[in-house]
């Protein structure tokens, strides 16, 4: 792989041991991918603070420097971790103090994460603590090379914002933060950004639920390819595309899609395919829509709902406001909990606007930093949960061994208030 003189310097120790380790990882990674070179980046979204048993052990052995070396640089040497070379943010991680005592989630982990936040803040990491950095001020511009992880954020950055990133991991982002480099491969190259598949909706895609279900179908069909989607599409908003992209990256591995006329790199269908002829479309009709609905509800048998989870990916302020509106002057069923996950910055706005108070008065909670899937924890005794998120309905049964119902926000709020799932495909 070609290295510039500056990169060779970093590799050979000009910027210290941690940068040597970072360059070593980037070279191994870039060569394994077959990348010709690295590309400069000044926007890294990774994860360092999330506790895990393996990380806890490393911290006990050698502090956060050891954890960063092993997990974020794949390096076993004892090295000091300098200040991040380029702007870096922490994505979602484990539950924070606001969720203490609500689940069986380890209090030691909450404490460990607090110490991680101090350590990494001192080294220049912005603790955004959300899977949606683009909702709280980290908005890369079109064409900008970034190094992000979190599949739902990656697909949003590539598709909706037109920034360029592969689906990075903890080690590659750890190395990128200290070097300002990432392999120039995959989604960073213009020729790899054109659509490869065409999916046509023959049923109206005109609500949060429909965008999520359509996304789940698209991901299942195209796997890790690059779809352009057309057909009976309404005008999506941020929350719709947040849901759509997350779903495509859950049932499949979509990192980039185009919606001709909507997303920035596809002013037209022709542009989406880079001037090449579009293939015959994969059709999404009534039967396919029913298949998605049944798949996402396949883990639900009991209609007694213990737990309603909203905000996956983390809720926008508009979503929090809508939930508060629906819960005004209502009370949750005594045996049912309701959580709304949102970025800490938006929680502050929700507090200021009174949304948090309305949701809490009904018996619900507005929480930050994490989600039940990331933290592998739900309210004690949860057997059946309901959600409006295709991603959470897909993952949580596998992670927690609980039943899932997937439906609209109104159906989820109804379940929270009555304790009973009464949803159905309409």
């Amino acid at each position: 792989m070609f290295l510039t003189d500056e990169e060779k310097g970093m590799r050979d120790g000009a910027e210290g041991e941690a940068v040597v380790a970072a360059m070593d990882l980037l070279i191994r990674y870039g060569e394994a991918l077959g990348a010709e070179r690295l590309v400069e980046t000044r926007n890294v979204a990774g994860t360092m603070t999330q506790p895990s048993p393996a990380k806890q052990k490393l911290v006990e052995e050698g502090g956060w420097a050891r954890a960063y070396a092993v997990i974020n640089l794949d390096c076993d040497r004892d090295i000091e971790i300098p200040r991040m070379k380029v702007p870096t943010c922490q994505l979602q991680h484990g539950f924070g103090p606001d969720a203490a005592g609500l689940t069986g989630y380890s209090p030691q982990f909450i404490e460990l994460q607090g110490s991680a936040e101090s350590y990494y803040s001192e080294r220049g990491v912005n603790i955004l603590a959300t899977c949606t950095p683009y909702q709280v001020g980290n908005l890369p511009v079109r064409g900008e090379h970034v190094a992000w992880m979190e599949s739902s954020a990656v697909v949003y950055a590539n598709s909706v914002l037109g920034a360029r990133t592969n689906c990075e991991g903890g080690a590659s982002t750890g190395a990128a933060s200290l070097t300002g480099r990432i392999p120039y491969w995959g989604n960073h190259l213009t020729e790899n950004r054109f659509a490869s598949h065409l999916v046509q909706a023959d049923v109206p895609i005109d609500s949060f639920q429909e965008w999520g279900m359509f996304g789940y179908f698209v991901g299942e069909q195209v796997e890790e390819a690059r779809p352009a989607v057309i057909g009976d599409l309404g005008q999506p908003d941020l929350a719709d595309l947040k849901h759509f992209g997350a779903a495509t990256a859950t049932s499949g591995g979509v990192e980039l899609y185009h919606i001709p006329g909507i997303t920035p790199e596809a002013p037209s269908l022709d542009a989406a395919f880079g001037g090449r002829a579009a293939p015959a479309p994969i059709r999404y009709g009534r039967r396919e829509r029913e298949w998605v609905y049944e798949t996402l509800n396949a883990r639900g048998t009991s209609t007694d709902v213990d737990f309603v989870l909203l905000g996956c990916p983390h809720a926008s302020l508009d979503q929090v406001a809508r939930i508060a509106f629906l819960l005004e002057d209502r009370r949750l069923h005594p045996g049912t909990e309701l959580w709304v996950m949102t970025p800490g910055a938006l929680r502050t706005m929700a507090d200021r606007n009174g949304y948090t108070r309305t949701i809490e008065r009904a018996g619900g909670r507005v929480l930050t930093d994490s989600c039940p899937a990331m933290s592998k924890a739900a309210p004690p005794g949860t057997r059946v949960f309901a959600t409006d998120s295709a991603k959470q309905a897909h993952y949580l049964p596998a992670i927690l061994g609980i039943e899932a119902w997937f439906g609209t926000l109104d159906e989820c709020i109804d379940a929270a208030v009555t304790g009973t799932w009464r949803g159905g495909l309409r």
Partner: protein
Amino acid sequence: MNPGEPGPRPGPLSAAPLAELRGRGIVPGVVEAEALVTHDAISGFGGIDVATGTVIEPRHELFGVCFTGKVLVFPGAKGSSGWSGYFQSTRLMGTGPAAMVFNVLTTKAVLGAIVTRVPTVVEATPDPLDVIRTGDLVRVDGDTGVVTLLRRAVSDVAPTTP
């Protein structure tokens, strides 16, 4: 068998290899172990349990099957970007696979193989999924990029589930 160690070796390998699949080694090292083969892409986050080295995705062909110490032969990675971190955790917990063989190159799977630190061959021909079956004894040479089929599984029974 201790996690991470190669599977049991047969007696002297007098017979010629049954098949050689040539690809590109991306993580060095040589290991001989039993293959665990799936035609389904694997999810890291929400797809595997790192404490037990087991696939936990309900609709997955390998649901409930343990990959610890096996040569994991699979199409590629899907799902969350936690993929590499989850497989790295299997290394740290001693539940990782012995080697990886996959043909769909993604950042998730490539970085995952590197941080799992097990011999890995990618882009092999003929397609490993057409040649290798679960239970076959294979050698993965991450230095030369060759996967060698050494011995067929005794029977084609499906892997046991716990």
